[in-house]
Protein backbone atom coordinates (compact mmCIF):
# COMPACT_ATOMS: atom_id res chain seq x y z
CA UNK A 1 0.00 0.00 0.00
CA UNK A 2 1.37 3.33 -1.04
CA UNK A 3 1.72 5.88 1.66
CA UNK A 4 0.96 9.49 1.08
CA UNK A 5 3.66 11.89 2.21
CA UNK A 6 2.37 14.11 5.03
CA UNK A 7 2.87 17.68 3.99
CA UNK A 8 2.27 20.60 6.27
CA UNK A 9 1.66 23.88 4.42
CA UNK A 10 4.59 26.25 4.89
CA UNK A 11 2.25 28.99 6.04
CA UNK A 12 0.98 26.80 8.90
CA UNK A 13 4.23 25.16 9.92
CA UNK A 14 5.85 28.54 10.51
CA UNK A 15 3.12 29.49 13.02
CA UNK A 16 3.81 28.43 16.53
CA UNK A 17 1.12 28.46 19.24
CA UNK A 18 2.27 31.91 20.37
CA UNK A 19 1.81 33.35 16.87
CA UNK A 20 -1.65 31.81 16.61
CA UNK A 21 -2.59 33.14 20.06
CA UNK A 22 -1.34 36.63 19.21
CA UNK A 23 -3.28 36.58 15.95
CA UNK A 24 -6.41 35.58 17.84
CA UNK A 25 -5.88 38.25 20.48
CA UNK A 26 -5.19 41.07 18.06
CA UNK A 27 -7.93 39.84 15.74
CA UNK A 28 -10.38 41.26 18.29
CA UNK A 29 -11.36 44.86 17.64
CA UNK A 30 -11.42 45.85 21.33
CA UNK A 31 -7.86 44.64 21.88
CA UNK A 32 -6.68 46.24 18.68
CA UNK A 33 -8.17 49.63 19.57
CA UNK A 34 -6.79 49.40 23.13
CA UNK A 35 -3.34 48.43 21.90
CA UNK A 36 -3.39 51.25 19.32
CA UNK A 37 -4.28 53.91 21.94
CA UNK A 38 -1.62 52.54 24.26
CA UNK A 39 1.02 52.52 21.54
CA UNK A 40 0.27 56.13 20.58
CA UNK A 41 0.51 57.16 24.25
CA UNK A 42 3.76 55.27 24.78
CA UNK A 43 5.28 56.75 21.61
CA UNK A 44 4.15 60.24 22.64
CA UNK A 45 5.72 59.71 26.06
CA UNK A 46 9.03 58.63 24.51
CA UNK A 47 9.05 61.41 21.91
CA UNK A 48 7.74 64.07 24.34
CA UNK A 49 10.73 66.47 24.05
CA UNK A 50 10.42 66.53 20.25
CA UNK A 51 6.66 66.67 19.78
CA UNK A 52 5.69 69.19 22.45
CA UNK A 53 5.65 72.82 21.37
CA UNK A 54 6.67 74.21 24.79
CA UNK A 55 8.82 73.33 27.78
CA UNK A 56 6.33 71.76 30.29
CA UNK A 57 7.99 73.67 33.16
CA UNK A 58 8.32 77.04 31.40
CA UNK A 59 6.35 79.71 33.27
CA UNK A 60 4.64 82.46 31.31
CA UNK A 61 2.51 84.23 33.87
CA UNK A 62 1.15 86.72 31.31
CA UNK A 63 -0.44 83.80 29.42
CA UNK A 64 -2.03 82.23 32.50
CA UNK A 65 -5.37 80.35 32.29
CA UNK A 66 -5.89 80.85 28.57
CA UNK A 67 -8.49 78.59 26.98
CA UNK A 68 -7.66 76.11 24.22
CA UNK A 69 -6.52 77.94 21.06
CA UNK A 70 -4.18 77.48 18.11
CA UNK A 71 -1.10 78.51 20.12
CA UNK A 72 -2.05 76.29 23.08
CA UNK A 73 -4.19 73.34 21.97
CA UNK A 74 -5.20 72.41 25.53
CA UNK A 75 -4.91 75.95 26.93
CA UNK A 76 -2.56 77.09 29.69
CA UNK A 77 -2.55 76.54 33.46
CA UNK A 78 -2.45 78.94 36.40
CA UNK A 79 1.25 79.65 35.81
CA UNK A 80 0.94 80.03 32.04
CA UNK A 81 2.40 76.59 31.31
CA UNK A 82 1.20 74.81 28.17
CA UNK A 83 -1.29 72.10 29.23
CA UNK A 84 -0.74 69.99 26.07
CA UNK A 85 3.02 69.80 26.67
CA UNK A 86 2.40 68.93 30.33
CA UNK A 87 -0.12 66.21 29.45
CA UNK A 88 2.33 64.62 26.98
CA UNK A 89 5.20 64.82 29.50
CA UNK A 90 2.78 63.58 32.15
CA UNK A 91 2.42 60.37 30.13
CA UNK A 92 6.13 59.78 30.74
CA UNK A 93 5.80 59.89 34.50
CA UNK A 94 2.41 58.23 34.80
CA UNK A 95 3.20 55.37 32.41
CA UNK A 96 6.65 54.92 33.95
CA UNK A 97 5.19 54.67 37.45
CA UNK A 98 2.53 52.23 36.20
CA UNK A 99 5.08 50.06 34.38
CA UNK A 100 7.46 50.03 37.37
CA UNK A 101 4.63 49.00 39.70
CA UNK A 102 3.72 46.16 37.31
CA UNK A 103 7.33 44.94 37.12
CA UNK A 104 7.92 44.99 40.89
CA UNK A 105 4.53 43.59 41.90
CA UNK A 106 4.63 40.84 39.28
CA UNK A 107 8.16 39.82 40.30
CA UNK A 108 7.30 39.73 44.02
CA UNK A 109 3.83 38.24 43.43
CA UNK A 110 5.20 35.44 41.25
CA UNK A 111 7.81 34.55 43.88
CA UNK A 112 5.22 34.47 46.67
CA UNK A 113 2.51 32.79 44.58
CA UNK A 114 4.77 30.04 43.24
CA UNK A 115 6.18 29.44 46.73
CA UNK A 116 2.67 29.22 48.22
CA UNK A 117 1.27 27.07 45.43
CA UNK A 118 4.18 24.69 45.16
CA UNK A 119 5.40 24.25 48.73
CA UNK A 120 2.54 23.08 50.96
CA UNK A 121 4.21 24.29 54.16
CA UNK A 122 4.50 27.84 52.92
CA UNK A 123 0.95 28.01 51.58
CA UNK A 124 -0.98 28.86 54.75
CA UNK A 125 1.41 31.49 56.16
CA UNK A 126 1.85 33.29 52.84
CA UNK A 127 -1.85 33.24 51.99
CA UNK A 128 -2.93 34.50 55.42
CA UNK A 129 -0.66 37.53 55.00
CA UNK A 130 -2.01 37.99 51.46
CA UNK A 131 -5.60 37.83 52.79
CA UNK A 132 -4.76 40.35 55.49
CA UNK A 133 -3.18 42.74 52.99
CA UNK A 134 -6.18 42.45 50.71
CA UNK A 135 -8.47 43.52 53.56
CA UNK A 136 -7.26 47.09 53.13
CA UNK A 137 -8.76 49.19 50.35
CA UNK A 138 -5.94 49.75 47.81
CA UNK A 139 -5.80 53.50 48.07
CA UNK A 140 -5.97 53.49 51.88
CA UNK A 141 -3.01 51.12 52.20
CA UNK A 142 -1.09 53.11 49.60
CA UNK A 143 -1.80 56.37 51.44
CA UNK A 144 -0.63 54.88 54.74
CA UNK A 145 2.54 53.48 53.17
CA UNK A 146 3.43 56.73 51.40
CA UNK A 147 2.70 58.63 54.62
CA UNK A 148 5.25 56.50 56.40
CA UNK A 149 7.84 56.23 53.62
CA UNK A 150 7.58 59.86 52.52
CA UNK A 151 6.15 61.37 49.33
CA UNK A 152 8.42 60.72 46.35
CA UNK A 153 8.14 58.93 43.01
CA UNK A 154 10.20 55.95 44.22
CA UNK A 155 8.11 55.62 47.37
CA UNK A 156 4.86 55.79 45.38
CA UNK A 157 6.18 52.91 43.23
CA UNK A 158 7.19 50.94 46.37
CA UNK A 159 3.84 51.58 48.07
CA UNK A 160 1.74 50.64 45.05
CA UNK A 161 3.89 47.56 44.42
CA UNK A 162 3.25 46.43 48.01
CA UNK A 163 -0.47 47.03 47.47
CA UNK A 164 -0.70 45.02 44.23
CA UNK A 165 1.72 42.16 45.02
CA UNK A 166 -0.98 40.16 46.90
CA UNK A 167 -3.27 40.24 43.83
CA UNK A 168 -0.55 38.69 41.67
CA UNK A 169 0.40 36.22 44.40
CA UNK A 170 -3.20 35.01 44.69
CA UNK A 171 -3.60 34.46 40.94
CA UNK A 172 -0.21 32.76 40.57
CA UNK A 173 -0.82 30.54 43.58
CA UNK A 174 -4.16 29.37 42.15
CA UNK A 175 -2.53 28.46 38.83
CA UNK A 176 0.53 26.90 40.52
CA UNK A 177 -1.78 24.66 42.60
CA UNK A 178 -3.29 23.28 39.39
CA UNK A 179 0.03 22.92 37.58
CA UNK A 180 1.60 21.18 40.59
CA UNK A 181 -0.74 18.22 40.13
CA UNK A 182 -0.20 17.83 36.38
CA UNK A 183 1.52 14.74 35.02
CA UNK A 184 4.35 16.51 33.28
CA UNK A 185 5.53 17.95 36.59
CA UNK A 186 5.63 14.43 38.00
CA UNK A 187 7.50 13.32 34.88
CA UNK A 188 9.98 16.17 35.27
CA UNK A 189 10.54 15.15 38.89
CA UNK A 190 11.04 11.52 37.84
CA UNK A 191 13.64 12.68 35.34
CA UNK A 192 15.55 14.23 38.20
CA UNK A 193 15.04 17.85 37.15
CA UNK A 194 15.73 20.21 40.04
CA UNK A 195 12.83 21.85 41.88
CA UNK A 196 14.03 25.33 40.90
CA UNK A 197 14.13 24.37 37.23
CA UNK A 198 10.65 22.85 37.47
CA UNK A 199 9.41 26.01 39.17
CA UNK A 200 10.91 28.60 36.91
CA UNK A 201 10.73 26.80 33.57
CA UNK A 202 7.69 24.55 33.72
CA UNK A 203 5.41 26.14 36.30
CA UNK A 204 6.14 29.72 35.28
CA UNK A 205 5.48 28.98 31.63
CA UNK A 206 2.08 27.60 32.54
CA UNK A 207 1.06 30.48 34.78
CA UNK A 208 2.27 33.14 32.32
CA UNK A 209 -1.17 33.78 30.82
CA UNK A 210 -3.04 34.70 34.02
CA UNK A 211 -0.03 36.82 35.04
CA UNK A 212 -0.25 38.70 31.74
CA UNK A 213 -3.95 39.43 32.28
CA UNK A 214 -3.34 40.54 35.87
CA UNK A 215 -0.38 42.71 34.79
CA UNK A 216 -2.49 44.74 32.35
CA UNK A 217 -5.13 45.38 35.01
CA UNK A 218 -2.53 46.31 37.63
CA UNK A 219 -1.01 48.75 35.13
CA UNK A 220 -4.42 50.43 34.80
CA UNK A 221 -5.10 50.43 38.56
CA UNK A 222 -1.61 51.79 39.27
CA UNK A 223 -2.14 54.74 36.91
CA UNK A 224 -5.47 55.51 38.62
CA UNK A 225 -4.02 55.05 42.11
CA UNK A 226 -0.98 57.22 41.41
CA UNK A 227 -3.28 59.95 40.13
CA UNK A 228 -5.40 59.60 43.28
CA UNK A 229 -2.38 59.80 45.59
CA UNK A 230 -1.00 62.84 43.76
CA UNK A 231 -4.43 64.47 43.86
CA UNK A 232 -4.56 64.01 47.64
CA UNK A 233 -1.11 65.56 47.95
CA UNK A 234 0.53 62.39 49.23
CA UNK A 235 1.96 61.15 45.93
CA UNK A 236 4.79 62.47 43.79
CA UNK A 237 5.96 66.04 44.49
CA UNK A 238 3.66 68.65 42.85
CA UNK A 239 6.55 69.98 40.72
CA UNK A 240 6.55 66.80 38.59
CA UNK A 241 3.91 66.99 35.83
CA UNK A 242 2.05 63.71 36.38
CA UNK A 243 -1.62 63.67 35.39
CA UNK A 244 -2.63 63.45 39.06
CA UNK A 245 -0.56 66.46 40.17
CA UNK A 246 -1.96 68.48 37.25
CA UNK A 247 -5.56 67.83 38.33
CA UNK A 248 -4.63 68.50 41.97
CA UNK A 249 -3.13 71.89 41.18
CA UNK A 250 -6.10 72.79 38.98
CA UNK A 251 -8.63 72.53 41.82
CA UNK A 252 -8.55 76.21 42.76
CA UNK A 253 -8.98 77.40 39.16
CA UNK A 254 -11.23 74.73 37.75
CA UNK A 255 -14.34 76.93 38.25
CA UNK A 256 -13.26 79.25 35.45
CA UNK A 257 -10.66 77.15 33.62
CA UNK A 258 -12.05 73.62 33.35
CA UNK A 259 -9.55 72.63 30.64
CA UNK A 260 -6.73 72.58 33.20
CA UNK A 261 -8.41 69.54 34.83
CA UNK A 262 -10.23 68.16 31.79
CA UNK A 263 -7.30 67.13 29.59
CA UNK A 264 -5.11 65.36 32.16
CA UNK A 265 -8.28 63.53 33.28
CA UNK A 266 -9.06 62.41 29.74
CA UNK A 267 -5.46 61.18 29.46
CA UNK A 268 -5.91 59.06 32.62
CA UNK A 269 -9.22 57.65 31.32
CA UNK A 270 -7.69 56.82 27.92
CA UNK A 271 -4.63 55.12 29.42
CA UNK A 272 -6.67 53.11 31.91
CA UNK A 273 -9.38 52.28 29.38
CA UNK A 274 -6.92 51.06 26.74
CA UNK A 275 -5.17 48.85 29.29
CA UNK A 276 -8.48 47.39 30.44
CA UNK A 277 -9.49 46.76 26.81
CA UNK A 278 -6.29 44.82 26.20
CA UNK A 279 -6.60 43.01 29.55
CA UNK A 280 -10.22 42.09 28.90
CA UNK A 281 -9.30 40.73 25.49
CA UNK A 282 -6.55 38.57 26.98
CA UNK A 283 -8.85 37.34 29.74
CA UNK A 284 -11.70 36.45 27.40
CA UNK A 285 -9.36 34.53 25.17
CA UNK A 286 -7.69 32.67 28.00
CA UNK A 287 -10.95 31.81 29.75
CA UNK A 288 -11.94 28.40 28.37
CA UNK A 289 -15.64 29.13 29.01
CA UNK A 290 -15.58 32.32 26.99
CA UNK A 291 -13.07 31.15 24.36
CA UNK A 292 -15.68 28.94 22.73
CA UNK A 293 -17.98 31.91 22.28
CA UNK A 294 -15.36 34.07 20.57
Amino acid at each position, binding site marked *: MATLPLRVPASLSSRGPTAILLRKIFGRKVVLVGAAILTVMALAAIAAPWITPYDPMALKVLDRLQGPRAAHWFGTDELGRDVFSRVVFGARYSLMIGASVVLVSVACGVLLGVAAGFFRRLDAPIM*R*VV*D*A*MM*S*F*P*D*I*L*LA*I*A*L*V*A*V*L*GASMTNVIIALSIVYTPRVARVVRASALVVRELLFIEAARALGISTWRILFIHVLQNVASPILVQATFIF*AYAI*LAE*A*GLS*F*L*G*VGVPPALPTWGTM*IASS*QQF*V*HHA*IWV*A*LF*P*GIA*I*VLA*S*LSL*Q*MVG*DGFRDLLDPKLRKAL
Partner: protein
Amino acid sequence: MIRYIASRLGGMVIVMLIVAILVFFITRLAPGDPAAVMLGEQATAADIANLRATYGLDRPLVVQFAYWLKELAHGNLGQSIFLQRPVTQALAERAEPTFFLTLFSLGIAMLIGVPCGIAAAVWRGKAVDQVFSAFAMLGASIPSFWFGLILMQIFAVGLGWFPVAGYGDPGVPLSDRLHHLVLPAIVLGIVNSALILRFTRASMLDVLGEDHIRTARAKGMSEARVVLHHALRNALIPVITVVGLTFALLIGGAIVTETVFGLPGVGNLVVSAVLRRDYPVIQGALLVIAALYVLINLSIDLLYLVIDPRVKY
Protein backbone atom coordinates in the same frame (compact mmCIF):
# COMPACT_ATOMS: atom_id res chain seq x y z
CA MET B 1 -22.46 24.01 59.37
CA ILE B 2 -21.44 25.00 62.90
CA ARG B 3 -18.03 23.59 62.16
CA TYR B 4 -17.81 25.73 59.03
CA ILE B 5 -18.86 28.89 60.89
CA ALA B 6 -16.36 28.13 63.65
CA SER B 7 -13.55 27.58 61.16
CA ARG B 8 -14.42 30.80 59.32
CA LEU B 9 -14.46 32.74 62.59
CA GLY B 10 -11.11 31.18 63.52
CA GLY B 11 -9.71 32.19 60.12
CA MET B 12 -11.04 35.69 60.62
CA VAL B 13 -9.31 36.03 63.98
CA ILE B 14 -6.00 34.97 62.41
CA VAL B 15 -6.41 37.39 59.50
CA MET B 16 -7.29 40.22 61.91
CA LEU B 17 -4.25 39.42 64.03
CA ILE B 18 -2.06 39.65 60.93
CA VAL B 19 -3.84 42.88 59.97
CA ALA B 20 -3.02 44.25 63.45
CA ILE B 21 0.63 43.21 63.08
CA LEU B 22 0.83 44.83 59.63
CA VAL B 23 -0.83 48.03 60.85
CA PHE B 24 1.52 48.23 63.84
CA PHE B 25 4.66 47.63 61.83
CA ILE B 26 3.69 49.84 58.87
CA THR B 27 4.16 52.88 61.09
CA ARG B 28 7.49 51.47 62.21
CA LEU B 29 8.68 51.49 58.58
CA ALA B 30 9.26 55.21 58.90
CA PRO B 31 12.96 55.96 58.81
CA GLY B 32 14.22 57.44 62.07
CA ASP B 33 12.53 57.91 65.43
CA PRO B 34 8.71 57.69 65.10
CA ALA B 35 8.30 60.28 67.87
CA ALA B 36 10.53 62.76 66.02
CA VAL B 37 8.68 62.07 62.76
CA MET B 38 5.29 62.59 64.45
CA LEU B 39 6.30 65.86 66.11
CA GLY B 40 7.97 67.36 63.04
CA GLU B 41 11.18 69.30 62.57
CA GLN B 42 10.56 71.98 65.17
CA ALA B 43 10.23 69.57 68.10
CA THR B 44 12.73 69.86 70.94
CA ALA B 45 14.61 66.90 72.39
CA ALA B 46 12.46 67.17 75.53
CA ASP B 47 9.23 67.02 73.48
CA ILE B 48 10.49 63.92 71.67
CA ALA B 49 11.51 62.24 74.94
CA ASN B 50 8.12 63.10 76.40
CA LEU B 51 6.23 61.59 73.49
CA ARG B 52 8.43 58.50 73.53
CA ALA B 53 7.59 57.99 77.19
CA THR B 54 3.86 58.71 76.69
CA TYR B 55 3.50 56.18 73.89
CA GLY B 56 5.97 53.70 75.33
CA LEU B 57 8.23 54.13 72.32
CA ASP B 58 11.29 53.79 74.55
CA ARG B 59 10.41 50.17 75.31
CA PRO B 60 11.34 47.13 73.17
CA LEU B 61 9.22 46.69 70.02
CA VAL B 62 7.65 43.41 71.17
CA VAL B 63 6.58 45.01 74.48
CA GLN B 64 5.12 47.97 72.57
CA PHE B 65 3.17 45.61 70.33
CA ALA B 66 1.86 43.57 73.24
CA TYR B 67 0.75 46.76 75.02
CA TRP B 68 -0.90 48.04 71.84
CA LEU B 69 -2.76 44.74 71.37
CA LYS B 70 -3.93 44.81 74.98
CA GLU B 71 -5.30 48.30 74.50
CA LEU B 72 -6.95 47.21 71.25
CA ALA B 73 -8.68 44.37 73.06
CA HIS B 74 -10.19 47.04 75.34
CA GLY B 75 -11.39 49.02 72.30
CA ASN B 76 -8.72 51.67 72.73
CA LEU B 77 -7.19 52.75 69.43
CA GLY B 78 -4.94 55.33 71.03
CA GLN B 79 -4.90 59.10 71.19
CA SER B 80 -4.76 61.42 68.18
CA ILE B 81 -1.68 63.60 68.40
CA PHE B 82 -3.15 66.50 66.48
CA LEU B 83 -6.81 66.34 67.56
CA GLN B 84 -5.95 65.65 71.21
CA ARG B 85 -8.76 63.12 71.66
CA PRO B 86 -9.18 59.35 71.42
CA VAL B 87 -8.98 57.92 67.88
CA THR B 88 -12.25 56.01 68.42
CA GLN B 89 -14.00 59.30 69.21
CA ALA B 90 -12.50 61.01 66.14
CA LEU B 91 -13.58 58.10 63.93
CA ALA B 92 -17.08 58.01 65.42
CA GLU B 93 -17.54 61.76 64.87
CA ARG B 94 -16.62 61.37 61.20
CA ALA B 95 -18.54 58.15 60.57
CA GLU B 96 -21.91 59.62 59.56
CA PRO B 97 -21.06 61.18 56.15
CA THR B 98 -18.91 58.19 55.18
CA PHE B 99 -21.61 55.72 56.21
CA PHE B 100 -24.36 57.46 54.23
CA LEU B 101 -22.07 58.16 51.27
CA THR B 102 -21.07 54.47 51.07
CA LEU B 103 -24.69 53.35 51.49
CA PHE B 104 -26.13 55.70 48.84
CA SER B 105 -23.29 54.95 46.41
CA LEU B 106 -23.87 51.24 46.81
CA GLY B 107 -27.60 51.75 46.19
CA ILE B 108 -26.95 53.81 43.04
CA ALA B 109 -24.30 51.35 41.83
CA MET B 110 -26.77 48.47 42.23
CA LEU B 111 -29.62 50.40 40.61
CA ILE B 112 -27.43 50.94 37.55
CA GLY B 113 -25.39 47.74 37.59
CA VAL B 114 -28.05 45.06 38.12
CA PRO B 115 -30.63 46.05 35.44
CA CYS B 116 -27.91 46.94 32.90
CA GLY B 117 -26.13 43.65 33.63
CA ILE B 118 -29.38 41.71 33.10
CA ALA B 119 -30.10 43.54 29.83
CA ALA B 120 -26.54 42.94 28.59
CA ALA B 121 -26.85 39.21 29.31
CA VAL B 122 -30.32 38.83 27.81
CA TRP B 123 -29.31 40.63 24.62
CA ARG B 124 -25.82 39.16 24.52
CA GLY B 125 -23.75 40.32 21.55
CA LYS B 126 -26.39 42.88 20.53
CA ALA B 127 -25.99 46.66 20.59
CA VAL B 128 -27.40 46.83 24.17
CA ASP B 129 -24.72 44.46 25.40
CA GLN B 130 -21.97 46.35 23.63
CA VAL B 131 -23.12 49.72 24.95
CA PHE B 132 -23.43 48.48 28.56
CA SER B 133 -20.16 46.55 28.40
CA ALA B 134 -18.42 49.67 27.06
CA PHE B 135 -20.02 51.68 29.88
CA ALA B 136 -18.73 49.16 32.43
CA MET B 137 -15.21 49.40 31.06
CA LEU B 138 -15.37 53.20 31.01
CA GLY B 139 -16.73 53.31 34.56
CA ALA B 140 -13.79 51.25 35.78
CA SER B 141 -11.36 53.62 34.03
CA ILE B 142 -12.60 56.95 35.36
CA PRO B 143 -10.79 58.41 38.38
CA SER B 144 -13.58 59.25 40.83
CA PHE B 145 -11.90 62.46 42.02
CA TRP B 146 -11.71 63.83 38.45
CA PHE B 147 -15.25 62.75 37.63
CA GLY B 148 -16.41 64.43 40.85
CA LEU B 149 -14.57 67.63 39.98
CA ILE B 150 -16.13 67.77 36.49
CA LEU B 151 -19.68 66.93 37.68
CA MET B 152 -19.31 69.51 40.45
CA GLN B 153 -18.53 72.16 37.84
CA ILE B 154 -21.55 71.23 35.75
CA PHE B 155 -24.26 70.44 38.31
CA ALA B 156 -23.23 72.37 41.42
CA VAL B 157 -21.32 75.42 40.14
CA GLY B 158 -22.99 75.74 36.72
CA LEU B 159 -26.59 74.64 37.23
CA GLY B 160 -26.74 75.11 41.00
CA TRP B 161 -28.70 71.90 41.55
CA PHE B 162 -26.52 70.69 44.40
CA PRO B 163 -24.37 72.27 47.10
CA VAL B 164 -20.79 72.76 45.86
CA ALA B 165 -19.05 71.28 48.89
CA GLY B 166 -19.28 70.52 52.60
CA TYR B 167 -21.86 68.72 54.75
CA GLY B 168 -23.92 71.60 56.08
CA ASP B 169 -23.61 73.15 59.53
CA PRO B 170 -23.69 70.76 62.49
CA GLY B 171 -27.16 71.93 63.58
CA VAL B 172 -28.95 71.47 60.24
CA PRO B 173 -31.53 68.69 59.80
CA LEU B 174 -30.36 65.31 58.51
CA SER B 175 -32.20 65.80 55.19
CA ASP B 176 -30.14 68.95 54.48
CA ARG B 177 -26.94 67.15 55.33
CA LEU B 178 -27.90 64.24 53.08
CA HIS B 179 -28.58 66.69 50.24
CA HIS B 180 -24.85 67.42 50.26
CA LEU B 181 -24.20 63.74 49.59
CA VAL B 182 -26.28 63.41 46.42
CA LEU B 183 -23.62 64.46 43.93
CA PRO B 184 -20.72 62.59 45.60
CA ALA B 185 -22.93 59.48 45.83
CA ILE B 186 -23.83 59.72 42.13
CA VAL B 187 -20.11 60.00 41.27
CA LEU B 188 -19.12 57.00 43.38
CA GLY B 189 -22.22 55.04 42.35
CA ILE B 190 -21.61 55.44 38.62
CA VAL B 191 -17.90 54.62 38.90
CA ASN B 192 -18.56 51.53 41.02
CA SER B 193 -21.57 50.27 39.06
CA ALA B 194 -19.09 48.85 36.52
CA LEU B 195 -18.10 45.91 38.71
CA ILE B 196 -21.72 45.07 39.61
CA LEU B 197 -22.75 45.30 35.94
CA ARG B 198 -20.01 42.91 34.87
CA PHE B 199 -20.76 40.51 37.70
CA THR B 200 -24.51 40.49 37.04
CA ARG B 201 -23.95 39.96 33.30
CA ALA B 202 -21.57 37.04 33.86
CA SER B 203 -23.85 35.48 36.49
CA MET B 204 -26.95 35.85 34.29
CA LEU B 205 -25.12 34.35 31.30
CA ASP B 206 -24.19 31.33 33.43
CA VAL B 207 -27.78 30.80 34.59
CA LEU B 208 -29.35 31.43 31.17
CA GLY B 209 -27.29 28.53 29.81
CA GLU B 210 -28.62 26.05 32.38
CA ASP B 211 -31.01 23.18 31.71
CA HIS B 212 -33.90 24.46 33.82
CA ILE B 213 -34.03 27.62 31.68
CA ARG B 214 -34.21 25.51 28.53
CA THR B 215 -37.00 23.48 30.12
CA ALA B 216 -38.89 26.63 31.07
CA ARG B 217 -38.62 27.90 27.50
CA ALA B 218 -39.68 24.48 26.14
CA LYS B 219 -42.79 24.68 28.31
CA GLY B 220 -43.74 27.78 26.36
CA MET B 221 -43.10 30.26 29.14
CA SER B 222 -42.73 33.88 28.04
CA GLU B 223 -39.16 35.17 27.78
CA ALA B 224 -39.85 37.88 30.35
CA ARG B 225 -41.03 35.28 32.89
CA VAL B 226 -38.05 33.03 32.14
CA VAL B 227 -35.63 35.90 32.72
CA LEU B 228 -37.27 37.59 35.69
CA HIS B 229 -38.72 34.57 37.48
CA HIS B 230 -36.31 31.74 36.78
CA ALA B 231 -32.96 33.23 35.77
CA LEU B 232 -32.79 36.37 37.91
CA ARG B 233 -33.54 34.63 41.18
CA ASN B 234 -30.59 32.30 40.74
CA ALA B 235 -28.31 34.84 39.13
CA LEU B 236 -28.66 37.40 41.92
CA ILE B 237 -27.26 35.10 44.59
CA PRO B 238 -23.64 35.36 43.43
CA VAL B 239 -24.14 39.10 42.87
CA ILE B 240 -24.28 39.46 46.67
CA THR B 241 -20.57 38.65 46.69
CA VAL B 242 -19.97 41.81 44.77
CA VAL B 243 -21.31 43.83 47.71
CA GLY B 244 -18.27 42.77 49.71
CA LEU B 245 -15.91 43.58 46.88
CA THR B 246 -17.62 46.89 46.21
CA PHE B 247 -17.34 47.86 49.86
CA ALA B 248 -13.54 48.06 49.62
CA LEU B 249 -13.80 50.02 46.38
CA LEU B 250 -16.37 52.38 47.87
CA ILE B 251 -14.33 53.06 50.98
CA GLY B 252 -11.27 53.69 48.80
CA GLY B 253 -13.35 55.88 46.50
CA ALA B 254 -14.93 57.66 49.47
CA ILE B 255 -11.49 58.70 50.78
CA VAL B 256 -10.75 60.58 47.57
CA THR B 257 -14.31 61.76 46.85
CA GLU B 258 -14.74 63.19 50.37
CA THR B 259 -11.66 65.31 49.74
CA VAL B 260 -13.05 66.64 46.43
CA PHE B 261 -16.42 67.54 47.96
CA GLY B 262 -15.03 68.69 51.31
CA LEU B 263 -17.07 66.15 53.27
CA PRO B 264 -15.96 65.78 56.89
CA GLY B 265 -15.91 61.97 56.77
CA VAL B 266 -13.45 59.23 57.71
CA GLY B 267 -11.67 59.59 54.35
CA ASN B 268 -11.04 63.26 54.97
CA LEU B 269 -9.83 62.43 58.50
CA VAL B 270 -7.35 59.88 57.10
CA VAL B 271 -5.99 62.27 54.47
CA SER B 272 -5.60 65.04 57.08
CA ALA B 273 -3.91 62.55 59.43
CA VAL B 274 -1.48 61.56 56.67
CA LEU B 275 -0.61 65.18 55.92
CA ARG B 276 -0.10 65.83 59.66
CA ARG B 277 1.64 62.48 60.24
CA ASP B 278 -0.90 61.65 62.95
CA TYR B 279 0.04 57.94 63.09
CA PRO B 280 -2.46 56.77 65.76
CA VAL B 281 -5.33 58.01 63.54
CA ILE B 282 -3.85 56.32 60.44
CA GLN B 283 -3.40 53.08 62.41
CA GLY B 284 -6.92 53.25 63.86
CA ALA B 285 -8.59 53.96 60.51
CA LEU B 286 -6.65 51.17 58.76
CA LEU B 287 -7.60 48.71 61.45
CA VAL B 288 -11.29 49.61 61.65
CA ILE B 289 -11.77 49.63 57.85
CA ALA B 290 -9.94 46.30 57.41
CA ALA B 291 -12.04 44.78 60.24
CA LEU B 292 -15.24 46.02 58.57
CA TYR B 293 -14.16 44.56 55.25
CA VAL B 294 -13.38 41.16 56.78
CA LEU B 295 -16.68 41.19 58.73
CA ILE B 296 -18.78 42.12 55.69
CA ASN B 297 -17.20 39.37 53.59
CA LEU B 298 -17.72 36.82 56.36
CA SER B 299 -21.36 37.90 56.74
CA ILE B 300 -21.90 37.51 52.99
CA ASP B 301 -20.44 34.00 53.03
CA LEU B 302 -22.72 33.10 55.92
CA LEU B 303 -25.68 34.74 54.18
CA TYR B 304 -25.27 32.24 51.36
CA LEU B 305 -26.13 29.49 53.81
CA VAL B 306 -29.46 31.14 54.51
CA ILE B 307 -30.53 32.27 51.06
CA ASP B 308 -29.20 29.53 48.81
CA PRO B 309 -30.44 26.04 49.77
CA ARG B 310 -27.87 24.48 47.40
CA VAL B 311 -24.95 25.79 49.46
CA LYS B 312 -23.97 23.33 52.16
CA TYR B 313 -20.81 23.32 54.21
